[in-house]
């Protein structure tokens, strides 16, 4: 069944949650990081208002997450359940809860400068919804659980009293702030829970369990004949009441407070059945007549809120057309005025034209159409419904939003300090149990993009930092490739001899298997005490399956710590396909670690290739080649790229 349901804000605070089986918080954290922050291409970005069915489910470590997002208020609704289970009504639940929650607490959610939303009463709405959907959708499996529940309940040991008071306190809503982990006694949903696992719920008070016991009856009456059970159950319930409920009258009153819906449930049932039931608890039932109305009201309220939300949605899609000539004229004038002064609430129509312009601008900067469209869609989604600042035009707002999303896209997730990584591998700290070994780096790419040149540039940079470098000639195919590297090595030797760097070439001539050469080179380097091994590879066309397939073997044999792909800044739309194919070429367990964008000095402002490849692979750009000299290698600066991309010269 459902493991947990959470309602959280984009700022990270959980407003309301219900946990049935404890789920590690990393599941939801990873979900947020992957879907909302990094926008991995496998999972589509967050669409505002899309129902849970439209959002692709997110799977992580045995759990499946269904989710929906309310952009305007910045709230995410997530349901987590085991991937093994198939729950047909889960989409409906997420959507309905969203409509309910937004309908009930909209005012509180829009308050500025606070994270507190008092929504303790939401428990009962959730229960009502869950019960309804479960009954509608899960009749068949509900039946299977029920008998087990009954048998297990009687076998359980007595509970600890604090549990009871804790949960009751929560019911009264005496305190503000959300209260996670409240397993509310008496929810029908917990029935299945008891069977599924032994978490906090198993330790629930006896009273609570008793409640479940009684409560499973109405569900059963709906789908199976009550005759068989009606006999066994009233007896069981009666015994329990005798043991506890009747002995302590105060408890009965408290029960009334805490579980109104539930008692009423039982009452409905009690009314339907003659005899023993009424006889046993006549006094308690009588005083709880109020409970019935609460249930009815709650159900009606829930339905009216849901209907409202539906109506609003359909109305929103319908009444987009302008209303009358005068109205449109006035709003047009007002819109123009607001466009200059600011404070205008942006709509899709307002943005359309400006977004087209922005897309053109990006295309002119050599961004692949695919990436440009994605960026523009993201910005548009972000801006619809946003109010512009005072004296801010739409274009300025779009520019700003684009700057933010470009920065977000190009910024790497982890640190890219190459020297530090090399140090960590070649001279591991005493506490870690790794053995020192050479750091292996390999460079791949399409023909003629500058693999060997960039390799020697990196080599120069490493030599300046006094590393001992071995260059392995992995291009055993193109004639002259080994000699070319030999020339580079000779030059580098001369350049850095004074500074103390050491470099050597490892080559086996032509015609050998590149993967084997690489493997031998690594072994040789380990033996001779080199710090870094740089492996050159033959250039290959990214859509040639035969050539690309050898890369997988290469990655397996050489075990590089870093695989860098060299991409030309000159290339246009093809960069997306290049990056994707190379990224996928190393087998399932390995992907690219970074890009080197060469020939950036030849394109001026049109550095769109950067965006295209990062968009395609989510792999960061490490270095940028800006010239012909060994020293013309630069760290990639996000700010620089964003400035170039947005400059309108």
């Amino acid at each position: 069944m459902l493991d947990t349901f959470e309602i959280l804000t984009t700022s990270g605070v959980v407003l309301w949650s219900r946990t049935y089986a404890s789920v590690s918080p990393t599941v939801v954290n990873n979900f947020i990081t992957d879907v909302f922050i990094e926008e991995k291409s496998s999972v589509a970005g967050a669409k505002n208002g899309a129902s849970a069915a439209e959002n692709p489910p997110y799977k992580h470590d045995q759990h499946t997450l269904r989710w929906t997002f309310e952009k305007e208020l910045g709230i995410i609704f997530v349901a987590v359940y085991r991937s093994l289970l198939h729950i047909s009504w889960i989409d409906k639940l997420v959507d309905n809860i969203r409509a309910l929650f937004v309908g009930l607490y909209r005012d509180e959610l829009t308050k500025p400068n606070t994270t507190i939303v008092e929504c303790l009463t939401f428990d009962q709405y959730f229960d009502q919804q869950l019960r309804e959907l479960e009954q509608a959708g899960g009749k068949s499996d509900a039946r299977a659980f029920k008998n087990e529940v009954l048998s297990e309940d009687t076998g359980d040991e007595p509970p600890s009293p604090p549990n009871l008071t804790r949960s009751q306190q929560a019911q009264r809503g005496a305190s503000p702030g959300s209260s996670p982990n409240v397993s509310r006694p008496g929810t029908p949903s917990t029935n299945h829970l008891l069977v599924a696992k032994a978490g906090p719920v198993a330790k629930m008070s006896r009273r609570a369990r008793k409640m479940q016991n009684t409560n499973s009856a109405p569900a059963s009456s709906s789908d199976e004949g009550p005759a068989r059970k009606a006999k066994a159950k009233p007896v069981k319930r009666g015994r329990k009441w005798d043991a506890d409920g009747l002995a302590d009258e105060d408890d009965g009153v408290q029960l009334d407070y805490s579980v109104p819906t539930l008692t009423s449930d039982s009452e409905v049932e009690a009314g339907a059945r003659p005899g023993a039931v009424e006889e046993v608890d006549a006094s308690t039932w009588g005083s709880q007549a109020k409970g019935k109305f609460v249930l009815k009201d709650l159900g009606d309220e829930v339905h009216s809120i849901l209907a409202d939300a539906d109506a609003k949605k359909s109305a929103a899609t319908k009444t987009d057309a302008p209303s009358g000539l005068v109205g449109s004229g006035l709003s047009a004038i007002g819109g123009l005025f607001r466009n200059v002064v600011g404070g205008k609430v942006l709509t899709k129509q307002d943005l359309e034209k400006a977004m087209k312009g922005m897309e053109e601008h990006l295309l002119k900067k050599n961004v692949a159409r695919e990436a440009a469209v994605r960026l523009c869609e993201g910005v548009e989604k972000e801006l619809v419904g946003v109010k512009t600042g005072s004296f801010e035009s739409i274009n300025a707002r779009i520019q700003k939003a684009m700057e933010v999303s470009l920065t977000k896209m190009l910024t790497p997730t982890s640190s890219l300090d190459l020297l530090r990584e090399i140090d960590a591998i070649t001279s591991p700290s005493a506490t870690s149990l790794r053995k020192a070994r050479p750091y292996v780096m390999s460079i791949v790419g399409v023909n003629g993009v500058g693999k060997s040149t960039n390799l020697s540039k990196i080599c120069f940079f490493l030599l300046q930092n006094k590393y001992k470098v071995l260059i392995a000639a992995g291009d055993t195919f193109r004639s002259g490739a080994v000699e070319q590297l030999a020339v580079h090595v000779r030059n580098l030797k001369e350049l850095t001899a004074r500074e103390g760097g050491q470099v050597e070439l490892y080559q086996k001539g032509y015609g050998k298997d590149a993967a084997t050469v690489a493997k031998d080179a690594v072994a040789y380097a380990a033996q001779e005490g080199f710090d870094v091994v740089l492996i050159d590879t033959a250039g290959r066309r990214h859509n040639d399956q035969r050539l690309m397939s050898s890369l997988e073997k290469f990655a397996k044999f050489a075990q590089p710590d870093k695989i860098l792909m060299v991409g030309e800044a000159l290339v246009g739309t093809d960069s997306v396909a290049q990056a994707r194919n190379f990224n996928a070429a190393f087998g399932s367990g390995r992907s690219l670690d970074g890009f080197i964008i060469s020939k950036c000095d030849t394109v001026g402002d049109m550095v769109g290739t950067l965006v295209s490849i990062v968009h395609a692979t989510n792999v960061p750009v490490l270095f940028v080649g800006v010239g012909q000299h060994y020293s013309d290698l630069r760290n990639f600066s996000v700010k620089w790229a964003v400035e170039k991309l947005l400059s309108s010269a």
Partner: protein
Amino acid sequence: MSTLQTIKDLLEASLTPSPTVIILGLAFCLVAPILLHFLYSTATPYTTLPSVLLLGPPGAGKTALTTLLERGSSSDTLDGPVAKTHTSQVPSSIELSVNSDDPSTSYKTNLDNESATAKKFLLVDTPGHPKLRASSLMRLNAAEPTIKSSLVSDGGAKSKIKAVVFMVDAAALADGDALPSTAEYLYDVLLTLQKRFHSRGGSRAPASMPVLVAANKLDLFTALPAALVKSNLEAELGRIRAARSKGLLDSGIGQDDVDAGEEGDWLGGDGSEKFSFAQMMEFDVDVDVIGGSVIGDGPGAEKWWKWIGERV
């Protein structure tokens, strides 16, 4: 027809130079701007509250601290005052108030009930994910009123940042992987503050910026004590500084302005061998390291609160 007639009449009347029309017109011209002024000045708060920026790597406990401080006064909640939290995507700010007579009062005391004068400020919680750090740093940069950043939209430029709280996870720092990433972020923060000091224009120097390194999660057994957190971070910052000085230049810096690029990237005092937080005093950046814990039976958050109270 009749409506057209009345409109015509009205137009004629308004265009005839009669004293009523002139007086009405004059009155409108004089009163309208004043009315507009009042309308807008009441709509936007006239004074901006001072704010405290909460930075740090993801998972350090920033949002948890935020909720703790906000809910602290009503500690009768079920699971303690700290709400469950997840990775943040957007910054959020909450309004808090300190007792301005005695900043050492606990955050738990409800200031509404007491006669003491309360000073309000905003605590700004920022997302810690590396992809989202740029905007936080931009906000820090924009703390100077003269620089208006184009990236800060929601009043960040207006709000005056009084202090920075940098949260670290003391338990995670114990093992190797978290330390470099944490230190890198701290390095960027301190470098931003240092550059901000350098970039002061004219006579107005930016106010000094105190930084609190809050070593969180001291309730855990594996957590490092504050002193050790400090020395580890200092050592790591020194290593990063050395690595950056050796590393490649950033793209966009041409050969000509190499000097300009190098000037700005060296954190702390020139030529010093080891980095220490004390070196940042030179740039009016006062760094303190205080341990505490948001949840559990640890030392609690009282010391941090006191620090914030004194700075606000």
